[in-house]
């Protein structure tokens, strides 16, 4: 079985080497207000390029929505 990661609560095959690669593959690079956490820890935008992804990682990708 291939390595898998969890992105926003969904299991997916691990196909990206870094956070940067993952965001690029989803077409969400350059969006203002996007934030990423890996395994419960925020990865600042400046570190997306270096942050490697490994099998079993749990990733949250969020942005602001309308809220009260």
């Amino acid at each position: 079985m291939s390595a898998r990661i969890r992105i926003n609560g969904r299991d997916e095959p691990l196909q990206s080497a870094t956070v940067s690669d993952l965001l690029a593959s989803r077409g969400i690079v350059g969006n203002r207000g996007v934030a990423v956490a890996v395994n419960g820890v925020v990865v600042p935008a400046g570190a997306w390029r270096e942050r490697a992804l490994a099998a079993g990682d749990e990733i949250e990708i969020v942005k602001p929505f309308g809220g009260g």
Partner: protein
Amino acid sequence: MGGTTGDTADALSIADRGFASRLLLGTAGYPNQQMMLDALAAAEPALVTVAIRRISLEPYAESLVDLVGGRYSLLPNTAGCATVRDAVLTAHLAREALGTSWIKLELIGDRETLYPDVEQLLRATEELVKDGFTVLPYCNDDPVTCRKLADLGAAAVMPLGSPIGTGLGIINPYAIERICTTSPVPVILDAGIGTASDAAQAMELGCDGVLLNTAVAKAHDPRRMARAMRLAVAAGREARLAGRIPKRSQAEPSSPQLGLVGG
């Protein structure tokens, strides 16, 4: 802003910031984006609340940050979070996403009433204050809870008027007034506002500000209701500062009793 003289001197002060307005407005549930922008323009809010949510994996059109981020100070929330862990992580993500350490802390204990989970709220407040956040917790209309939150370092307390989205107004004015009298930090009435008189009442009871969303977003004319809320908050504040007359059980004529025609 505000329209009346003295507003500048009467600024709302939370933590290290001053605000010309005492109205905080949410960005959820408007019929469309233009109506939201019109409502924000009419409300002239001190802070504009936003939620932090998982990005949809479909291509996305316009970013809320691009839309309102330049013109208004954004206050992210942890709406919907039910555990300390999720609320704290959401706060950290919000800080990264928006570059603000201010957070409206919501910890929901019950899906039906959306009442706060006080025990978890206290723990999350303590943790986020230690992490350097300016924490504004949405909380019960309970003076004891509010005092504990302030003791833990909350920058303001935000007791509910009535459950979120109900529009029932302030169902326990006694408790709200009591909180305003005793709180060492600003009190922002949060949730339950249905119409302008509710917002005015909150200010008359001594609240430092009012946070609302649904009452404007779901009004027939959101822009007009936003303006009504701005005026109501200002009117209620003026009335509070002016000092209302005591309530009496007997009538007392306001016109002179002597010199009546035919007397």
